[in-house]
């Protein structure tokens, strides 16, 4: 029955897809069958109930939020990283730093997911962390060194074999010799200019001098953008250490992004960053600056050869600001309209851990931004993590989803009722 429904949906869609493809899909189309197949055509389903889910619900009882808000378990999703909500509101796709992308469905719309299964099980992924949607329903998945696109993913995900195309072929996103496993969690977003923006973390604590040329040329240690047919690639943002969260302001269209800063300089410096980019090609200071206006030891005393844009908000050192989302929903009080909700993953080498919380940033009429905690309580009295938030996004009803890759879960934050 479901198969029939899918087929019908697919048929209904095909006209629309054909139109979209002529406009926006790369010339060098490769069918799914041309990708390396693992032979796996069966889905893996994740159990949504039981002791594991109960344990997470217990943790959530200890999370504090402003009055009127509540947080609940939305889905069990192993290794949950960045999220993309389908424009039809049917599926939430969730990336990981492993080899799976999860498709999360709330079929009965009780705002708790009832099905979590892997997406495109016949495809082999490598760190498919970054997921994003275009308005016309194309899902983009940014991996370690490839970007794939999936037309009408919200419909085709019901089948193990989905139509998949290269936006950026394997090995073309970054130079192969720059591949690593750290700072390789890409994020992506489609901007108001209908281009895809992709973050490319650089793999070092402080970028070494011999890499600066290749970084400038390729956008490693920056954010690139390109047309949705893969043409017109350019480096949009320079001087970034490792950005794992960005979104475009719903009114101004400006790109805002978080950036993780240098380790090993002490517990309290340098600050993390929330940045605001007002025009193409701006430079945000790495490797001359290690975060905020703190100079790196490696480049201390050197004249900074570029004009640097310092952060809009200096965040707590080592808290690891990751995914972010501008709130545009109708559910939360008016003060939160166009505010940024962002996740702090939590520190890994600070004497006393900080972070592991959801932050909210208000931006006033003059563009001044102030950040404060919104949801916290994932660090217990022993300094142990009960969860580590990664990304924040928004459902169509105006509630927020928060992913957590330590617990392996997605939470939903709602207001009222």
């Amino acid at each position: 029955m479901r198969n029939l429904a899918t087929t019908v949906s697919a048929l209904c869609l095909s006209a629309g897809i054909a139109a979209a493809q002529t406009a926006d899909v790369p010339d060098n189309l490769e069918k799914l069958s041309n990708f390396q197949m693992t032979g796996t055509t069966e889905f893996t389903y994740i159990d949504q109930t039981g002791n594991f889910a109960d344990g997470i619900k217990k943790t959530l009882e200890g999370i504090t939020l402003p009055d009127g808000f509540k947080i609940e378990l939305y889905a069990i999703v192993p290794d949950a990283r960045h999220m993309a909500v389908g424009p039809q509101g049917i599926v939430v796709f969730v990336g990981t730093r492993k080899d799976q992308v999860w498709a999360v469905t709330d079929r009965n719309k009780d705002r708790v997911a009832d099905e979590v299964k892997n997406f495109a099980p016949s495809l082999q992924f490598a760190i498919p962390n970054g997921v994003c949607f275009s308005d016309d329903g194309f899902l983009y998945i940014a991996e370690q060194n490839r970007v794939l696109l999936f037309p009408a993913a919200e419909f085709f995900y019901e089948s193990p074999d989905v139509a998949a195309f290269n936006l950026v072929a394997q090995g073309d996103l970054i130079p192969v010799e720059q591949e690593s496993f750290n700072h390789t969690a890409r994020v992506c977003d489609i901007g108001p200019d209908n281009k895809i923006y992709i973050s490319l973390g650089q793999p070092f604590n402080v970028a070494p001098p011999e890499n600066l040329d290749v970084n400038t040329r390729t956008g490693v240690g920056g954010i690139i953008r390109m047309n949705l047919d893969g043409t017109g690639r350019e480096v949009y943002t320079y001087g970034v250490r490792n950005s794992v969260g960005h979104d475009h302001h719903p009114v101004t269209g400006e790109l805002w992004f978080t950036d993780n800063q240098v380790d090993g300089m002490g517990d309290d410096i340098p600050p993390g960053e929330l940045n605001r980019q007002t025009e193409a090609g701006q430079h945000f200071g790495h490797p001359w600056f290690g975060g905020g206006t703190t100079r790196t030891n490696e480049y201390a005393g050197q004249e900074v050869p570029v004009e640097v844009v310092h952060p809009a908000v200096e965040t707590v050192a080592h808290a690891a600001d990751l995914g972010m989302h501008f709130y545009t929903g109708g559910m939360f009080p008016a003060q939160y309209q166009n505010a940024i909700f962002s996740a702090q993953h939590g520190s890994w080498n600070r004497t006393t851990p900080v972070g592991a919380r959801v932050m909210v940033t208000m931006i006033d009429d003059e563009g001044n931004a102030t950040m404060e905690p919104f949801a916290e309580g994932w660090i217990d009295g022993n300094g142990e993590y009960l969860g580590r938030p990664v990304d924040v996004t928004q459902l169509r009803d105006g509630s927020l989803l928060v992913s957590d890759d330590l617990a392996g879960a997605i939470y939903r934050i709602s207001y009222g009722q």
Partner: protein
Amino acid sequence: MIRLTALALGEMILAGGAFAQGLPEGDRTAGRQLAGQCRTCHGLDGYARIPIAPHIGGEPAAYLAAQLTAFRDGTRTHEMMTVVAKSLTDDQIANLAAWYSGHTATATLTADPAEAPELCVACHGADGIALIPEAPNLAGETNIYIDTQLKAFRLGKRVNEIMQPIAAEMTDAEIRAAADWYADVGLVVEMVE
């Protein structure tokens, strides 16, 4: 033939193993305390909490000590580990190696061992539990971790006289297949106080 070569190389690095024997005796209690700065990524039991970190519980002490020393000396580099290892003394390295190697790692292989990657089994075992003290366990590691390490050996970004020539001959597909094999092995680490 390749297995023979690997074994011959294994003999050669026994001399290198003498380095490990030259380490101070590790103090597990001190190691446990120091492991507070490892646990966010590796867990106190050495079962990794994030995919980019390997499981190190029950790993051979010689391997752990050699890697920490290499991170400290800069012969192996990693964005996080280089920072962490920079200030460790020989004693602290021995203590950490003693703490993490003292746990018990148990692998459960459900696939047919005959299909294990031929190039790897002499040192890493079919189930990913190391057969020589210089080699790490691979059981249950994230496939992308193993994949990335093999590619680093192939590029010469990670240095090891055994692994570099082996990785140099491997294609991307062979690397991923070996990574998938060991990632699919079940791993349980029992913490030993």
